[in-house]
């Protein structure tokens, strides 16, 4: 009796998980197939699902001089790296400081709370003032404008995430450093950072995803030269005709690095996504 019930459960489990996985994978496969399909396969009625011949034409075209994707790819890489470095560095310093301060002064808990709110207000509020600010600073269409925007969203997240990690450090560890005569800087780098490396990794991954994918604010301060990849993709939208090949190729290029991220850093990724939601 029991055996029958368990296998029913496993059958149901198999069906549900299988169906969910299929729902996730099919659109991705479809995108990839479209990016290696010949133009004529789109035009047949009904269109061919499986390419009659494999072509890497769209990728080649995108990476050619006229396609300019190399420039935008470079922009995205530069922005993302800068944003990760700055956010993680400044953010964890601030988180360390806040974690120490708020144990003594309640006022600093308020700062933490305000920083948390950055996560919850509409970024669309920022686009106009941000545009004007960058215009006045003569930074329109410069990578620096995008970097500042992304740091201002990413860094609060790092603070929020890292405070949890710093809070867990036992007081004794800190005190032993003090007794050895280490100043705060030395203690932070030699003692605190090594213990919180998993936290740093999580913060870096989350900031990278955020910056690589962000579209709204970047699109409002960028016109020609400083475009990042998501803005390039959105540009294909205005085209009315079927332009699926190139669009799929560029989308695949944008998606791939994040896929690799998700596959190889899953442990940290999950921790970053659920942090603040579920401790531990």
């Amino acid at each position, binding site marked *: 009796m029991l055996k029958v019930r368990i296998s029913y459960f496993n059958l149901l*489990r198999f069906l*549900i998980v299988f169906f969910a*996985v299929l729902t996730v994978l099919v*659109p991705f496969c479809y995108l990839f197939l479209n990016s290696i399909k010949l133009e004529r396969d789109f035009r047949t009625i009904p269109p061919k699902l499986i390419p009659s011949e494999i072509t890497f034409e769209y990728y080649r075209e995108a990476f050619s001089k006229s396609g300019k994707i190399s420039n935008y790819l470079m922009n995205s890489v530069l922005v993302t790296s800068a944003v990760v470095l700055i956010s993680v560095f400044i953010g964890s310093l601030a988180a360390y400081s806040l974690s120490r301060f708020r144990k*003594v002064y309640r006022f600093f808990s308020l700062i933490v709370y305000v920083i948390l709110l950055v996560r919850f207000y*509409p970024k669309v*509020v920022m686009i106009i003032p941000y545009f004007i600010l960058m215009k006045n600073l003569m930074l329109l269409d410069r990578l620096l404008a995008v970097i500042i925007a992304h740091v201002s969203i990413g860094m609060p997240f790092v603070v929020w995430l890292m405070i949890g990690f710093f809070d867990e450090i036992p007081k004794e560890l800190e005190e032993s450093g003090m007794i050895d005569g280490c100043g705060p800087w030395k203690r932070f780098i030699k003692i605190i950072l090594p213990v919180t490396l998993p936290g740093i990794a999580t913060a870096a991954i989350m900031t990278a995803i955020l910056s690589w994918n962000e579209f709204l604010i970047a699109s409002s301060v960028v016109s020609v030269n400083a475009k990042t990849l998501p803005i390039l993709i959105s540009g294909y*939208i205005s085209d009315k005709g079927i332009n699926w090949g190139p669009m799929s190729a560029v989308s695949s290029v*944008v998606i791939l690095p994040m896929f690799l991220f998700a596959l190889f850093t899953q442990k940290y990724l999950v921790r970053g996504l659920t942090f603040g939601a579920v401790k531990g």
Partner: protein
Amino acid sequence: MLLKKNWQEKRTLFTFLLPAILILLVSQAYPILYSLSISFRQWALAESLKPKGFVGFNNYIKAFKDPIFLNAIRISFVFCIVATSFEIILGFIIAYFTVGENFFLRLSRTILILPMVIAPVANGTIWRMMLNSQSGLINQLLRFIGIQGPNWLGAPGSALFSVIAIDIWQWTPFAMVVFLAGFSIIPNELYDAAKVDGAGRLKTLRYIIIPYIIPIGFIVLLFRLVDTLLVIDAIYTTTFGGPGFSTNVITLFIYWQALRYFNISYASATSWILSIFTLLIALSLMRFQKRVQTKMWGA
């Protein structure tokens, strides 16, 4: 405490904090306050390059008389409530069935996370192709079983439904991941006790897992309610608010006003209405969540 008397320590810790505060002041506080001040003035770029005089609450009053804005509120609400409910329910079900440590379950979990890490803009382009009325995969499959599928994104009746489905596809994994983390903190003693009492799977689910997981559900609710209210990228790349105004959510309304019509002050006022509203939801849900959590899990 150690910190209280140690002035040098305090000074250094303060310098640790300073750069972050400066960045937040320049790149968050300043733009936000600036947009607040513009929202009380008259400024359309078509009329002048600089903000004109103070008009009090006129922009706000105008918003609540603007049928397109009111319609945007309604659409945002539908989007937010339908998408969030589906994401929570589906996320819970999928999480429940993917708990476990064998190879296939772990592999499935890895795959199921993928939609969440891709750019919402790319998500939009994928589904534009999937849902294309002529050559999209969905309609090709439907034709295969003899159904003529609708023009998903192009018809007012189905467009909202479609963009909601796209959001569900991308963000159900978030609910799943958070619920999975929640399952992992259910104390083993509870399962043991259930076993001793002879509870089967359904009873364990009903009396152990669901009550314990409710506070986690509220966290998912908080994040998804706010994020679906603020959704823009995926709609921008699929329907751009159309056809007509059928998918014109509040964020897109603001985007149009700001970057297409250049009604700067009006866009600022409407974005402040949205901000206040989302912050109210976020703050009250945070408080409520805390209360539920203390009640369910103890202090």
